C-alpha cells in the first residue's frame, strides 16, 4: 500500500471515531498506579449493564499524574470533557450523566477540550499549561498507543514519507540546521552525530535508541513509549535511512513492562503497514528494529555500556574515542540517540528546521521535557520551550509547594545533577545555564524539596545510589564515591569534622578526573552543589550536631510535650512498633529514647487536636535524662 492510501484509511478511521461516542482512560503506568484499571473495568461493566455501545479506549498519559485516573468523554454532538481522579464509584454517575444523558457533570470535571463552554475551564488555558508548548507530548493521552492509525491520522509518518523523497545528506543537514541537541542529557548536536556516523567507514551500521531511563524520579521516556511509541520508531527509521543503516535496536529497561508491551505492539503494526521491513513505502530502503530489554543496571544508560549490554556482556563502559559513530555495536558504526531525540526527528523533517529552531533559546533549540515530582502540588510531566525558568515550571506548571511549606531546593538531572537553591529559581532551562549553575539537564527529572528535607541527607542519598550502581571498572568511581558516602554518613550522624568538607571537595575532583564515563564523572555533583548552596546545613550538622530539617535520625528525637498530651488517649502507645512509649491511662505518655527508632508513627497518629508529638534537634534539646537515653540507644544501634 502506498502512503496516501494508508493515510486516507487512517484518517477515515479517525473521523469515524470522532463521529461516535467514546471514552478515553489513561492507563499508562502512572494511571494504573492510581487505579485506572479498576476504573476501566467499572466503565466496561456499567456500559454493559446500561446496554450502551460506547467504545472505551486505553490511552497513555497527558502528563497530569496528580489527577490520575484521568477519563475523557467524547460525544459527537457535544464538547469533550476531561475528569480527574475518577474512581470506580464515580463511574455510574458519569455514564448516567454524560454518556447516556446531557449532563456533562462539570462539577467533577477538570475542564473541557473545546473553548467557551460555561462552567468548566478550557484545558489548554489552565495555569498548568500556561508555559507549555507540546510538540512530542502533543498526542500523549489523546490517541490509542496501540493503534497506528490514530498516530497516522495526527500526521504521523508524513515525516518518513517526506524523508524517503530526500537524499540522506539533505536529511542530515536539515537535522543539523534545526539545532537539535541530544536529549539524553549531555546535549551533543544531533546533526553532527548523524554526520559522523554517516561518514564512518564500516558496514553494517546500526541505529540504537537509548530507552534505559534509569534516573530515579525521571519517567518521561516511559510516558512517551507508553503513550505514543510510533514517533520514536518513525525517528529511528529516518535516522537509519539518513546514515545508511538497515538495523535498529531499542534498548529498554525491563522495569518498564508496559512500555515494552506497547512497543512490541507498535513495532508489529509498523511492520504490517510496511513502515518497517523490506522496501519501505516502495523506496527500496530496508530497515528492521529489534527490542533488547535491559536486565537492570543504571550504568547501561551510558552509550558504550549500553552497547556492551546489547552484545550480551556485563554492561561496563569503555574509553572513548573511538566513539560509537565509528566503532560501536560489534565494532561497527553505530548511532545512539535518546527516546526524546528520535521523537523530534519526524517533525523536523515534516515542518522544517526553521520551525524547530524558532522554538527555544539561541543555544538550546526546541522544547524541554521534565517530570515534576517531590514536594510539589501537581506532579506530572511537562513540555516547555527551552529557556523557561525554573520558577515558572515549579510555581505555575507544578502549582507550587505542597502543604504550605516553604521551598528549599530543586534537584535537576538525577544523580548526575545538582540541587539549586531559591536564589537560582530564575535560571532559564537550557543546557548551558544549568551547567553553569553546577547542575545539568540530565534526563529531565525535576524534584522539588521543601523545608523538611535535609540537604546533607539528600547528597548522601544520591551518593548511596551511585555506589550501588557503579559498575566497578574505575577505582575512583567504585571506591572514591564510597569514601565520600562514608564521610557524608558521618556528618549525618553527628560524627563529622570540618576537615571532612575539604576531603569531600578533593575526592570530588579526583572522582571526576578518574572515571571513564559520566556516571562517575558527574557523581559528585549533588554533593558539590549542596556544599556550594547549603553549606550552613553541613556546618549545623558538624558544629552544632543539629539537623535543621529534623531528618537525620542520630541528630533528631521525637518528644511528647507533657502539657499537650491528653492523658486518656493511647494512640501512640498502641501503635509504637518498638513499645518505646510508656504511661498508664491517665498519665502523661513518655518516649523511652533508648528504644525509639525514629519511625515517626507517634507523630502520625497523635490526634491533631492534641498535636503533642514534636521533633527536636539537636538531641540536647531533650530533657537531660532523655538525651542520655538517646545516646545509649544510638550506641546500641537501635537506629539501624
Amino acid at each position, binding site marked *: 500500500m502506498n502512503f496516501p492510501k494508508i493515510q486516507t484509511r487512517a484518517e477515515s478511521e479517525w473521523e469515524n471515531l470522532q463521529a461516535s461516542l467514546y471514552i478515553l482512560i489513561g492507563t499508562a503506568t502512572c494511571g494504573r498506579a492510581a487505579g485506572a484499571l479498576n476504573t476501566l473495568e467499572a466503565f466496561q461493566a456499567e456500559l454493559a449493564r446500561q446496554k450502551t455501545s460506547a467504545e472505551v479506549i486505553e490511552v497513555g498519559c497527558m502528563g497530569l499524574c496528580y489527577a490520575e485516573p484521568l477519563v475523557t468523554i467524547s460525544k459527537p454532538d457535544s464538547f469533550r470533557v476531561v475528569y480527574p481522579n475518577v474512581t470506580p464509584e464515580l463511574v455510574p454517575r458519569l455514564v448516567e450523566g454524560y454518556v447516556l444523558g446531557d449532563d456533562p457533570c462539570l462539577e467533577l470535571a477538570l475542564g473541557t477540550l473545546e473553548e467557551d463552554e460555561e462552567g468548566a475551564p478550557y484545558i489548554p488555558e489552565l495555569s498548568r499549561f500556561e508555559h507549555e508548548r507540546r510538540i512530542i507530548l502533543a498526542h500523549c493521552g489523546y490517541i490509542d498507543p496501540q493503534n497506528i492509525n490514530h498516530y497516522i491520522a495526527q500526521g504521523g509518518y508524513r515525516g518518513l514519507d517526506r524523508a524517503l523523497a530526500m537524499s540522506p545528506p539533505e536529511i542530515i543537514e536539515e537535522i543539523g540546521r534545526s539545532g537539535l541537541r541530544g536529549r539524553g542529557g549531555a546535549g551533543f548536536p544531533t546533526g553532527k552525530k548523524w554526520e559522523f556516523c554517516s561518514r564512518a567507514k564500516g558496514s553494517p551500521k546500526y541505529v540504537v535508541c537509548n530507552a534505559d531511563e534509569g534516573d530515579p524520579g525521571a519517567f518521561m521516556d516511559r510516558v512517551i513509549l507508553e503513550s505514543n511509541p510510533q514517533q520514536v520508531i518513525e525517528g529511528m527509521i529516518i535516522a537509519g535511512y539518513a546514515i545508511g543503516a538497515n538495523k535498529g535496536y531499542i534498548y529498554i529497561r525491563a522495569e518498564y513492562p508496559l512500555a515494552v508491551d506497547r512497543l512490541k505492539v507498535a513495532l508489529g503494526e509498523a511492520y504490517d503497514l510496511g513502515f518497517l521491513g523490506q522496501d519501505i513505502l516502495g523506496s527500496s530502503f530496508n530497515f528492521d528494529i529489534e527490542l533488547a530489554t535491559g536486565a537492570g543496571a543504571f550504568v547501561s544508560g551510558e552509550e558504550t555500556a549500553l552497547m556492551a549490554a546489547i552484545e550480551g556482556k556485563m554492561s561496563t563502559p569503555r574509553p572513548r574515542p573511538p566513539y560509537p559513530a565509528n566503532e560501536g555495536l560489534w565494532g561497527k558504526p553505530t548511532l545512539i540517540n535518546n527516546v526524546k531525540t528520535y521523537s523530534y526527528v519526524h517533525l523536523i523533517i515534516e515542518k522544517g528546521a526553521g520551525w524547530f529552531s524558532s522554538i527555544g533559546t539561541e543555544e538550546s533549540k526546541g522544547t524541554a521535557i521534565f517530570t515534576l515530582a517531590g*514536594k510539589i502540588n501537581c506532579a506530572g510531566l511537562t513540555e516547555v520551550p527551552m529557556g523557561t525558568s525554573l520558577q515558572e515550571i515549579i510555581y505555575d506548571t507544578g502549582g507550587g509547594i505542597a502543604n504550605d511549606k516553604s521551598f528549599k531546593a530543586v534537584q535537576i538531572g538525577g544523580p548526575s545533577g545538582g540541587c539549586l537553591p531559591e536564589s537560582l529559581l530564575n535560571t532559564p532551562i537550557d543546557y548551558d545555564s544549568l551547567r553553569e549553575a553546577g547542575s545539568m539537564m540530565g534526563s529531565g527529572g525535576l524534584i522539588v524539596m521543601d523545608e523538611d528535607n535535609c540537604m546533607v541527607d539528600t547528597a548522601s542519598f544520591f551518593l548511596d545510589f551511585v555506589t550501588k550502581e557503579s559498575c566497578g571498572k574505575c577505582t575512583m568511581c567504585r571506591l572514591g564515591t564510597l569514601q565520600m558516602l562514608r564521610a557524608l554518613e558521618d556528618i549525618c550522624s553527628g560524627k563529622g569534622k570540618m576537615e571532612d568538607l575539604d576531603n569531600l571537595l578533593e575526592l570530588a575532583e579526583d572522582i571526576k578526573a578518574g572515571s571513564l564515563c559520566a556516571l562517575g564523572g558527574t557523581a559528585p555533583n549533588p554533593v558539590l552543589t549542596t556544599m556550594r548552596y547549603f553549606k550552613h546545613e553541613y556546618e549545623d550538622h558538624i558544629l552544632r550536631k543539629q539537623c535543621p530539617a529534623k531528618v537525620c535520625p542520630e541528630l533528631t528525637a521525637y518528644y511528647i510535650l507533657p502539657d499537650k498530651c491528653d492523658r486518656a488517649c493511647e494512640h501512640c502507645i498502641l501503635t509504637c512498633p518498638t513499645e518505646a512509649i510508656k504511661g498508664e491511662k491517665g498519665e502523661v505518655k513518655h518516649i523511652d529514647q533508648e528504644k525509639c527508632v525514629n519511625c515517626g508513627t507517634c507523630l502520625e497518629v497523635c490526634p491533631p487536636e492534641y498535636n503533642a508529638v514534636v521533633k527536636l534537634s539537636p538531641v540536647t534539646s531533650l530533657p537531660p535524662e532523655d538525651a542520655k537515653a538517646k545516646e545509649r540507644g544510638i550506641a546500641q544501634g537501635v537506629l539501624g
Partner: protein
Amino acid sequence: MTVTEKDKLSEVISKCKPERGNLIPLLQEIQAELGYLPQEAMQEVASFLDIPKVEVYGVVTFYNQFRLAPLGKHHVRVCMGTACHLRGGKLILEALERELSIKVGQTAPDRSFSLERVACVGCCMLAPVVLIGEEIHPKMTPFKMEEDLTPYRQEI
C-alpha cells in the same frame, strides 16, 4: 533442580539460537520460567553458548534483575527513588525490615516474604510507594505499612 525445572530449562534453551548475543534474553527467559537461575541452569547456558561458566556468572551477578535463589511467596519491593526518599522511603524500608524480621535483599526462612529495594518505579506522585507482588501501595507511612501487611500475612 527438580525434574519439571529441568524440563522447562531444556524447552527454553531449545527455542534459542546458540549465539553469544542471546545470553541475556536467554537468562531472562529462564528466570521467567523458573523464578530464579539455579547453578545447573547457568552451567547449561554456558555449554549451550560455548562460553566460560564464569562469564555467565559474571553477567548474572552484574545485573540487578537476576536472582540466584527463588523468591518468597510475597515479593515486597520498596521504591528508593528520589521522590520516595524525600517522603520517607527509608523509614518504610526500616519498618518492613522490622515487621518481617528480615533485612533488605533477604527472603524469610519460611519463604513467606522477600524484601527488596528498587531504584524507581516511576510513580513519583504517589511517593513513598511499596509494591507487594504487582499491587501498588501508595503514600505509605510506617504505620500504614504495618496495616497493609496484615492480609498478606494471613495468606501464607
